[in-house]
Structures are given as structure tokens and as C-alpha cells.
């Protein structure tokens, strides 16, 4: 089974802190994604990566950055956390292209609270 593991289920951070959310997948997937989930807004794409050291902005990248130094690991970074970044963060991975009849596999999510 594909496994996407997010390092923390719950995090509480203070405003202004630098926050790292870690995600690891074990299926050698090329693509990795970070989504943010908020009630009534569904999932919104923050960043994605299609290869090591490659990244592309999604729909809401402001206030976030990412790092992909190894194929299996994709980190989301909040440079200076703010209260409006309190949310559920979901990591996902997939094979290189959905035309290969694949799907995105999701981690369990990290619920981040910024106080």
C-alpha cells in the first residue's frame, strides 16, 4: 500500500514562528502536493513539486515556501506563522502523470493552530 506520512497530526505554534510541516511518501512518486483545507472552502493547492528541487506555485502560495531535497520528502514552510494560517494541511503524492490512470494519495493531515 502507498503510504503518505505527515510528521505531526496536531501542531500549536506562536505568531511569528517559523514552522516546518514534513511529508514523506514511500512509493517513489514523482509528484508531491501541499493542500490547505478550510471549512466551506474545500482543498486549495498551495504548492506542488514534480521532481527533486523542482516546485511550482499553486493557487494560494503567499506566506508559504516548500523544499524538496529528496524524492520521498516534501516540506512546507511557514516563514513567519500568522493566525490566518491556522488550518488543516494535507500532503499528497502521485505518479508523474494522471494520464497513467493513477490517483493522488493523501496523508492524514496536520492540524495547525497559530496562536
Amino acid at each position, binding site marked *: 500500500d502507498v503510504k503518505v506520512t505527515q510528521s505531526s497530526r496536531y501542531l500549536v505554534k506562536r505568531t511569528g514562528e517559523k514552522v516546518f510541516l514534513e511529508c514523506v511518501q514511500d512509493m517513489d512518486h514523482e509528484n508531491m*502536493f501541499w493542500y490547505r483545507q478550510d471549512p*466551506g472552502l474545500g*482543498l486549495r493547492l498551495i504548492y506542488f513539486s514534480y521532481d527533486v528541487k523542482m516546485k511550482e506555485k*499553486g493557487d494560494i502560495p503567499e506566506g508559504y515556501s516548500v523544499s524538496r531535497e529528496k524524492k520521498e520528502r516534501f516540506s512546507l514552510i511557514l516563514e513567519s506563522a500568522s493566525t490566518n494560517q491556522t488550518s488543516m494541511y494535507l500532503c499528497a503524492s502521485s505518479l508523474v502523470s*494522471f*494520464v497513467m490512470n493513477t*490517483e493522488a494519495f493523501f496523508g492524514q493531515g496536520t492540524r495547525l493552530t497559530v496562536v
Partner: protein
Amino acid sequence: AQSVTQPDIHITVSEGASLELRCNYSYGATPYLFWYVQSPGQGLQLLLKYFSGDTLVQGIKGFEAEFKRSQSSFNLRKPSVHWSDAAEYFCAAYSGGGADGLTFGKGTHLIIQP
């Protein structure tokens, strides 16, 4: 702009009754379509997907979905719901051609009445 719309924010269904969750998409060409389920406090699990071919797609947990090109819809159905089906359901689409991720609807919260 490409979008996925789930018109119903909440749906309440009695246990044993049938279910239909609506999903409409707005894309230039037919996208790849997915339904995911999220149980409380959990990540997303794929129920089913449509890439091409037969427009009636069978998924896990007794769910099915029908793709209707003329209506730009991909509605999810289940003939008889169980209390364990209470969850958040997301429709998603992918236009193809790159690693730009899935576009999700805002979700439908399914409540099961005893």
C-alpha cells in the same frame, strides 16, 4: 477558469435510503474526475475515478458515479447508505498535461439519520 462545483454543502439522509451527491465541472475539455471521502480527523480516501470509457464507474464501499458529458456532471450515488458513510465527500478534477494537481470542490457533508 477551471472549476469544480458541489452545490450541496450539507445533505441529510436516513440510514438505508439512497444517496446522490452532485458534482459539476467547468473545463474546456473533459477532465479526469475523482470522488474522495474524508472521515472525521482523517485524510482523503479515493472512492472512484473516471478517465475514459464506460460512463458508469464503480468504486469502493458500494459507491458508483455516472459521468454525463452533456451536463458536465459526475454525480456520486449509493443505493443504501450506512451510518458509517457519514463523512465529507469531495469531487475533484484534473485537466491533464502536467503536474498541476487536482482541483477540488468545496465538499458535501453527509449526515446519516437513524
